């Protein structure tokens, strides 16, 4: 109880401009893994964490970045609400503000700094990116800054230096700052004078020639990277190379995982007697989990490479390139960050739309964000691309990029339609600060990739495992007694004098029995019931069950399919992908011929198969009708384009 008393608690608020390193400091303080990046707008809401300093509980609030508390923007209003209303309400507790000041673009921090200093709350400052500022030709005089502001100031030359800040000393030294001219909107003269005095006292030029050379290099790079045509082509090339290399590099570790699961499955098969428990273990649990785990290397590699690209500062340039493509469809430039976030998961993407000031722009972005390919779709893409472009990493890379492009194109097309019909009106222009180019940190990118991989694994170990167990039961029961055709085969096998031929007949009888059992099971009955709806996109009853099982969570498709074909097959045929590839339909034709794989791939790119996203849409858009609209629109578009893709591929000569 003593720990939670008011005296033993400190409320720490982290405030600053966008993309100055608040979330990095937050993570360093509370040991969390809030998402950080090298472009502004990642923190859309305040994030709260806590840590203990001795017996004292410290509650840390990481505010979204803003240039002033008085801007007519959601993030500024949120900061204003927290600092002008919430903090004074907690005046019986200890409150202090840590202002994060970026040395690059130093004067841009002054407006917010003055507003924070006028609050009369004890403060401390962390100056970030000082090494980058020196490379750009100026040095921040920390001692002079400390004296001018009247608060303790520490430096974090690089991002990695955040973790070595002596937080205890900084908190102990925090004090109410020297009074500054009260910042009143509309009366900026006194603030401007104060700012120019502060700049003159605290910033010194260093190595001007080197800084000029660097600026020239950055400008030259920017001219190419944000060029309307060259920038767009380069973006496409970068994506093709990235996905191609992910596909190519992951092949070896994927084989290792496959062999490992295959060995465990075989060991259980040989050491356990045939029966329901062995079936559940081998086909349900191992078959299902290996169907997901096998994609771990590709997911790790993809997130590693994306993190490297983000850190270089390239993704912010890509935002500018994308803005030119988004604008004609009525999406604001601010929609880029939410849409980019949706490539990891639509939920943080939808929550990021809080930064979009206009309600119509925001609603349009929420409605189309789930069209962007999230990481849960990756296993389906990898499986289908493997069928469409086997053993050709370059073609596979292009098909992969095509998946992402199709999602993005349908998203902007749908946004254009929504903005013209349901939500008409103009969009606001985009203002985005281009971050400096940086050498990416392999360690940070590795850490992010491992974090994402771990979440993927946890998911495979929980939701997917549970669905696989339930689906295995539904695929195994009720069991079907052997029909006359199977009994005849068995009698013929017993009567045959040739042992080889006898075994072949027995195998045939067993295979027929398993297939009939799977067809007669609850899952089989359900699959055959919905098969007419999904047949036009190329699904038979087995694929229909997998599609249905993945309707609330699309990531279970491959695992479900593995369980289905595992129950219906006599023996696990090597790798889980190979097993699906070699599986047959009831008529003996391949389960996934190329045209059906194409149709299903298009369906999975575009369909709304994520219950939590619908819940968040309903909450953020302010009504269940928007979630229903999203569900109906996305599923209809997915089905129609899936049918079109399959028919087009069949017309082009692919089997389907």
């Amino acid at each position, binding site marked *: 109880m003593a720990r939670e008393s008011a005296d033993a608690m400190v409320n720490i608020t982290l405030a600053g401009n966008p993309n100055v390193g608040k979330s990095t400091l937050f993570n360093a303080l509370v040991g969390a*893994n*809030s*998402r950080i990046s090298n472009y502004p707008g990642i923190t*859309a*809401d305040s*994030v709260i964490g806590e840590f203990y300093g001795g017996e004292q509980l410290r509650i840390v609030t990481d505010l979204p970045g803003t240039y002033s508390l008085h801007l007519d923007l959601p993030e500024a209003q949120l900061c204003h609400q927290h600092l002008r209303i919430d903090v004074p309400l907690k005046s019986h507790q200890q409150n202090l503000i840590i202002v994060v000041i970026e040395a690059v673009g130093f004067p841009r921090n002054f407006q917010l700094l003055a507003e924070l200093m006028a609050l009369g709350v004890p403060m401390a400052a962390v100056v970030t990116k000082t090494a980058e500022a020196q490379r750009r030709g100026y040095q921040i005089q920390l001692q002079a800054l400390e004296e001018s502001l009247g608060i303790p100031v520490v430096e974090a030359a690089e991002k990695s230096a955040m973790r070595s800040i002596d937080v205890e000393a900084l908190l102990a030294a925090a004090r109410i700052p020297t009074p500054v001219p009260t910042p009143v909107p509309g009366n900026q003269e006194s603030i401007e004078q104060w700012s120019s005095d502060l700049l003159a006292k605290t910033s010194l030029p260093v190595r001007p020639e080197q800084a000029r050379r660097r600026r020239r290099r950055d400008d030259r790079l920017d001219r190419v990277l944000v060029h309307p045509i060259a920038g767009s082509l380069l973006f496409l090339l970068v994506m093709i190379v990235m996905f191609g290399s992910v596909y190519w590099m992951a092949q070896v570790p994927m084989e290792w995982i496959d062999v490992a699961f295959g060995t465990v499955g075989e060991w259980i098969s040989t050491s356990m007697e045939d*029966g*329901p*428990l062995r*079936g*559940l273990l081998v086909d349900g649990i191992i078959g299902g989990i290996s169907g997901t785990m096998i994609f771990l290397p590709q*997911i790790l590699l993809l*997130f590693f490479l994306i993190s490297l690209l983000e850190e270089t500062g390239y993704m912010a340039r890509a935002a500018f390139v994308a803005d030119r493509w988004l604008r004609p469809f009525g999406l604001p430039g601010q929609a880029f960050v939410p849409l980019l*976030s949706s490539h*990891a*998961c*639509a*939920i*943080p993407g939808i*929550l990021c739309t809080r930064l979009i000031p206009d309600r119509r722009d925001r609603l349009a972005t929420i409605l189309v964000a789930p069209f962007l390919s*999230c*990481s*849960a779709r990756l296993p389906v893409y990898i499986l289908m691309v493997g069928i469409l472009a086997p053993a050709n990493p370059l073609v596979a890379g292009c098909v992969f990029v095509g998946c992402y492009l199709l999602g993005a194109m349908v998203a902007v097309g749908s946004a254009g339609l929504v903005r013209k019909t349901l939500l008409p009106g103009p969009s606001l222009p985009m203002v985005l600060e281009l971050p400096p180019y940086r050498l990416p940190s392999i360690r940070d990118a590795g850490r992010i990739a491992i*974090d*994402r*991989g771990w*979440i*993927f694994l946890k*998911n495979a170990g*929980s*939701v997917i*495992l*549970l*669905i696989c*167990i*339930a689906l*295995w*039961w*539904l695929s*195994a*029961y*009720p*069991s*079907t*007694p052997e029909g006359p055709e199977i009994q005849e085969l068995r009698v013929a096998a017993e009567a045959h004098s040739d042992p080889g031929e006898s075994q072949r007949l027995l195998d045939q009888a067993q295979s027929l029995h398993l297939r009939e059992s799977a067809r*007669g099971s609850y899952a089989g009955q359900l699959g055959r019931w919905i098969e007419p709806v999904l047949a036009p996109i190329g699904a038979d009853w087995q694929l229909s069950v997998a599609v249905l099982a993945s309707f*609330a*969570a*699309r*990531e*279970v498709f491959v695992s479900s399919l593995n369980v289905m074909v595992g129950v219906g097959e006599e023996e696990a045929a090597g790798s889980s992908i190979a097993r699906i590839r070699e599986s047959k339909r009831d008529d003996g034709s391949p389960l996934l011929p190329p045209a059906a794989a194409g149709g299903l791939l298009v369906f999975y790119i575009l369909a709304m198969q*994520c*219950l*939590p*996203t619908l*819940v*968040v849409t309903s*909450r953020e858009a302010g009504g269940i009708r928007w979630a229903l609209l999203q569900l109906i629109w996305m599923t209809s578009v997915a089905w129609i384009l899936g049918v079109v893709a399959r028919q087009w591929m069949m017309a082009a000569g692919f089997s389907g």
Partner: protein
Amino acid sequence: MNEFPLSDPQFWWVTLLAVAAVVLLILKRVRKSDDQDQNGSCGGCSSK
């Protein structure tokens, strides 16, 4: 005619496991829908 191997104890074990899986799944999904926070993801995706 379809059948269940009611006399096989293994059948009851796998049925029990399947029922437990469905209950856990429902509880897990309900909890996720309830407490999506701003740093969360849908559970299937790997964003933080």
